């Protein structure tokens, strides 16, 4: 097996010369683990003792009845250690780093979930760790920063550009280009230069493998549709890959519609007309950029989805129409979150709630013997500051003001 650099017209490896050798070695190491069944076994053993793989597939009986159509199942990546699917990728790369003999890891983070997962992995494996995080995301996800620091990670707020994920990625590359000898860059999603898109998707593919087995066991047959939110693309590819050749299963990726596709304030790259082909952050994909090729500011209520690019693997699947793409607006997301909490006692991350939105739009039109799976990429507790804020909850505000009073003294 050799690493695929391109997926149709997308992907590649647009990296500074200083990283050429690093990537060559990474590619070799990746091919070794990919071809070594012992690696996957070690990975599974780690994930089933340190995290709780297989994560359950929950039948959402109340939501199913509420919409009166398809039977709704939820794949529970939120129950992973650290609360999201990000752990799958990170723990796998942790094992890889150990094999490569490096001693330090760096990562970018948007929602903070990948940062938390990386900090956790670094603590577990005894690596030094630095996480780059856009300053705006530091504001949105302060609790995550606190925990990363407590696990011994240095969190560097990135004050350049739009102060979000893309800027954190640039900054991580700047670090890597300086410290490649000791350091591995734990890329957080299925983007970036090869072999990252393929490697991250592979490590996440466990989601779909489990889900296929579980849905057949619980529902008796494969699902009609699978919904996943799309930031960089790792959780969606994680669940989609297993079903790519299954004729009866339609795959639906849901992007951040922000204030609406017409508003200019969103992060939809594969649906809507605002993105175009480009090359940045080491790879070629559909980017939200202006006519000059300058990247645009994106917007989403969820810090994990407002990214300018998208996995080249998804861009290819989009072009080949193997995956359908939709967008969910901020308001729809809060509504779906609300319904899910009240009906099922489950709190999806704001990112994941995007997938719920689209599933809810379509479930009632489907037959009762059909099943759909929503990939719940993470849990929403981490979003308390954003969600409580979005609700405008008065007693939350009062609580924060009270706390601040104590701290002022």
């Amino acid at each position, binding site marked *: 097996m050799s690493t695929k650099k391109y997926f149709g017209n997308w992907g590649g490896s*647009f990296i500074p*010369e200083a990283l050429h*050798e690093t990537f060559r070695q990474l590619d070799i190491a990746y091919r070794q683990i990919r071809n070594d069944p012992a690696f996957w076994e070690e990975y599974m053993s780690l994930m089933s003792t340190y995290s709780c793989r297989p994560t359950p597939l929950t039948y959402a009986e109340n939501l199913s009845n509420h919409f009166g159509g398809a039977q709704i199942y939820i794949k529970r990546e939120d129950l992973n250690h650290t609360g999201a699917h990000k752990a799958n990728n990170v723990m796998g790369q942790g094992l890889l780093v150990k094999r490569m003999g490096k001693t330090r890891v760096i990562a970018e983070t948007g929602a903070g979930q990948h940062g938390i997962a990386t900090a956790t992995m670094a603590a577990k494996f005894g690596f030094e760790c630095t996480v780059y995080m856009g300053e705006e995301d530091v504001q949105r996800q302060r609790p995550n920063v606190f925990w990363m620091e407590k696990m011994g990670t240095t969190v560097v707020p990135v004050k*350049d*550009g739009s102060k979000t994920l893309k800027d954190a990625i640039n900054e991580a590359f700047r670090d890597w280009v300086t410290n490649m000898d000791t350091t591995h860059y734990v890329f957080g999603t299925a983007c970036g230069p090869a072999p990252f898109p393929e490697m991250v998707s592979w490590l996440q593919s466990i989601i779909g493998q489990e889900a296929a087995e579980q849905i057949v066991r619980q529902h008796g047959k494969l699902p009609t549709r699978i919904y996943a939110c799309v930031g960089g693309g790792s959780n969606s590819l994680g669940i989609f890959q297993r079903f790519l050749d299954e004729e009866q299963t339609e795959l639906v990726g849901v992007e951040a519609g922000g204030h609406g596709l017409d508003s200019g304030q969103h992060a939809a790259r594969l649906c809507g007309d605002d993105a175009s082909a*480009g090359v940045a*952050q080491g790879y070629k994909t559909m980017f939200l950029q202006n006519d000059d090729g300058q990247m645009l500011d994106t917007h989403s209520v969820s810090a994990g989805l407002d990214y300018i690019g998208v996995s080249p693997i998804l861009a290819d699947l989009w072009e080949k129409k193997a995956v359908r793409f939709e967008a969910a607006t901020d308001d729809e997301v809060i509504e779906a979150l609300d319904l899910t909490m009240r009906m099922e006692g489950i709190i999806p991350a704001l990112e994941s709630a995007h997938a719920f939105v689209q599933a809810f739009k379509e479930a009632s039109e489907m037959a009762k013997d059909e099943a759909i799976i929503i990939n719940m990429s993470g849990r929403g507790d981490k979003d308390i500051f954003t969600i409580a804020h979005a609700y405008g909850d008065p007693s939350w505000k009062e609580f924060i003001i009270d706390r601040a009073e104590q701290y002022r003294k």
Partner: protein
Amino acid sequence: MKLEKIIRQRKADKDILLMTHIVLGYPSFEINREVIKQMVDNGVDCIEMQIPFSEPMADGPVILKANQDSLTRGTTIEDCLNFGAEMCSTHEIPFLYMTYYNIIYKYGEERFLDQAAEAGIRGLILPDLPPEEGAHLCKSAKQRDIAPIMIYSPTSTVERMQELSGHGAGFIYCTARKGVTGSHSDLDTEFKNYLSRCRQATSLPLAVGFGIQNRSDIEALIGAADMGVVGSQTIKLVDEQGSAAVGPFISRLRGTS
């Protein structure tokens, strides 16, 4: 005339050449104009003009900020191409464009190269376009007498250097150290070994950049390299002391004052 030839001719009279760098539109095209004039008047041999990009992955804090400020002020590619054409027709020395690949990809490779060639641009530096991805662009550029400048890094193996040399033209840009632009580099024994590896791998002239800040850095390069590249340092200087400080700085670097 091809860039390599110009470099070699200029090198004939001098122990070392000097390339400088500016970010287009930062702090303004007006000041770019003044700075370039001072550079040329004080004996700079070659100037790379960076077309700003929103994601300058290989640049350190000074140039990064300059890129962003320029874009915030509204700089467009069109502005940059016009300004480049103006400089080529105003000054005798060779001008290069430095930018990231997306700028050219979005603008259209052929369209960009045609305009650059017509303006008289002599070379192109794209730090995020390795020849694996840019073989076609390198060829198209060469066809128009625009030299695709290859970059060597201390991490490059000799085989890799040789491979790169085959794709490049004009000169090789050797980064003095790992990392991004901006901070000072130690030009020590290890560095000298690296430069002699570079020499062995290519017959093109060698330029050395990243962290070259003063006359003694330049002196350390004499004999080992053909050209020193000063980047972030002039931007800082203009930020702190205005464009008038550039002339004296350059002449100090050149050792003529």
